[in-house]
């Protein structure tokens, strides 16, 4: 499997994992404002395993690869994040089963599937101050850019801006899911760690996208 789509998938997953590992402390500190401070630790411990076993995952097709990643995340990340992120990867995997190539539309569909998976798993809606509040506006922008026929560089850059804007917008929201929800109105005033993580990941992708491994 050596298509560009496959390379890009690998690049995205690897970037997510590396971002989680690199930002352990930042993400943990965000989670200690109105949460319990373990978000960074949980993500890092799980994605560490993803990186450590990187070469071992079955790469029959994109779907199989993503499913292997999903199994590691679901099974090895603790806290809320394991099931949430694992479900997201699993749904994206299902949407790319048997595929070697992905179009922009496919990517949008995979993101939508991931979002629905997260909603089903955790019962959260948009506006509940979770990572959904970054993922969903970001997907809207990607969909729009894909429709406009934008290049992948343009799409990733726009997605990063959208994710950051959306993550910032969680500051004024009151948490209704997750541990922050217990604090009621006191959850207002700080961003949701999960949403910020999405923004940080996208910003990294945007800054490295042009240097990613390309088919020669």
């Amino acid at each position, binding site marked *: 499997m050596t298509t560009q789509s496959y390379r890009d998938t690998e690049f995205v997953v690897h970037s997510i994992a590396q971002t989680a590992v690199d930002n352990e402390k930042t993400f*943990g500190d965000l989670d200690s404002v109105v949460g*319990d401070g373990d978000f960074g*630790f949980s993500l890092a411990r799980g994605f560490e395993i993803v990186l450590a076993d990187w070469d071992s995952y079955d790469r029959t097709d994109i779907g199989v690869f993503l499913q292997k990643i999903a199994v590691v995340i679901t099974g090895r990340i603790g*806290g809320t994040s394991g*099931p949430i992120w694992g479900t997201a990867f699993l749904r994206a995997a299902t949407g790319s089963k048997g595929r070697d190539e992905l179009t922009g539309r496919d990517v949008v569909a995979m993101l939508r599937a991931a979002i629905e998976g997260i909603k089903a798993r955790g019962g959260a809606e948009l506006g509940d101050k979770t990572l959904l509040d970054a993922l969903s506006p970001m997907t809207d922008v990607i969909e729009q850019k894909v429709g406009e026929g934008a290049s992948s560089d343009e799409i990733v850059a726009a997605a990063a801006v959208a994710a950051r804007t959306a993550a910032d917008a969680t500051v004024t929201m009151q948490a209704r899911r997750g541990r922050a929800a217990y604090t009621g109105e006191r959850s207002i005033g700080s961003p949701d760690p999960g949403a910020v993580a999405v923004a940080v990941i996208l910003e990294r992708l945007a800054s490295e996208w042009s240097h990613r491994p390309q088919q020669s």
Partner: protein
Amino acid sequence: MKKFVNDPQQYVPEMLEGIALANPDTLRYVPEYNLIMRSDAPRQDKVSIIQGSGSGHEPAHVLTVGRGMLDGACPGDVFAAPPMDYVYETTKLLASPKGVLLLVNNYTGDKMAFDMAQEMSLADGVTVKTLFIDDDVSVQDSTYTVGRRGVAGNFFVMKAVGAAAEAGADLDEVIRIGEKVNSVTRTMGLALTACTPPAKGSPLFELGDDEIEIGVGIHGEPGRRRAKIEPADALVDELLEPVLADLPYESGDRVALMINGLGGTPISELYIAYRHAHKVLTERGITVARSYVGEYCTSLDMAGVSVTLVKLDDEIEQLLAAPAEIGLRIF
């Protein structure tokens, strides 16, 4: 951070290894799944009882594994629900023909991990059911959000279902008892200081020199409100009143009263708090039939206490009084 810690990432595994080394005859340790289990589990003739939850709440739950209580505990990292795999593998390891009961404190992460593990175990043909514990009255508007949290009251559920299972009750009967105990158990806690998770290395939140957090969660989640420190009796009133009003507990009731230390509070202070709670209950015509003073469900090194009441009937009282032998040993 000043702690007895080597590598913060090894905090939980090293603790579990210590527990296993200290209890060589009664406990078995399975490092792959953070699992502490009775060395004689699973037993074919009894329901297996498993509790998960995050670490940092010791003695809950790894030190309440033993005859008459849990068959196994597979905690996650500090304050993090266990990864789903841990629960799934633990369930398979402890599967008994009489079934498996998963005890879950009601938090999003725990709920999801245990739900998924239950689903997968069922698919494997294991008989497994789940029971949620949610005794924390400090969470208001709980229907609107994620429901109440499970805190120190989980001790009583563990004790009762453990005793019932040990006596040979079947899975449905064990669940009936667990739900009943949970339904008459209420807790509320407050923090005088924040706790310091080893991976974070600094206090989880900031409290002023004269500030306390009323209704704090056992993961250091903020509570109902901040307040100024008051004398011990007034602090106990702040906890006891919402607890009493919630069920409510009334004149003529017999109760178990627990004053639970959150980790950094000395035993002497726990008894000062107990004294006042006992007096208030007695004045209200409520009989304290069983007393629990000590650390049952902590939040690392947090200074603070929680107050738990359990409304007793003959069945619950007998189950609480049944013998048990757990890793937490005093003599």
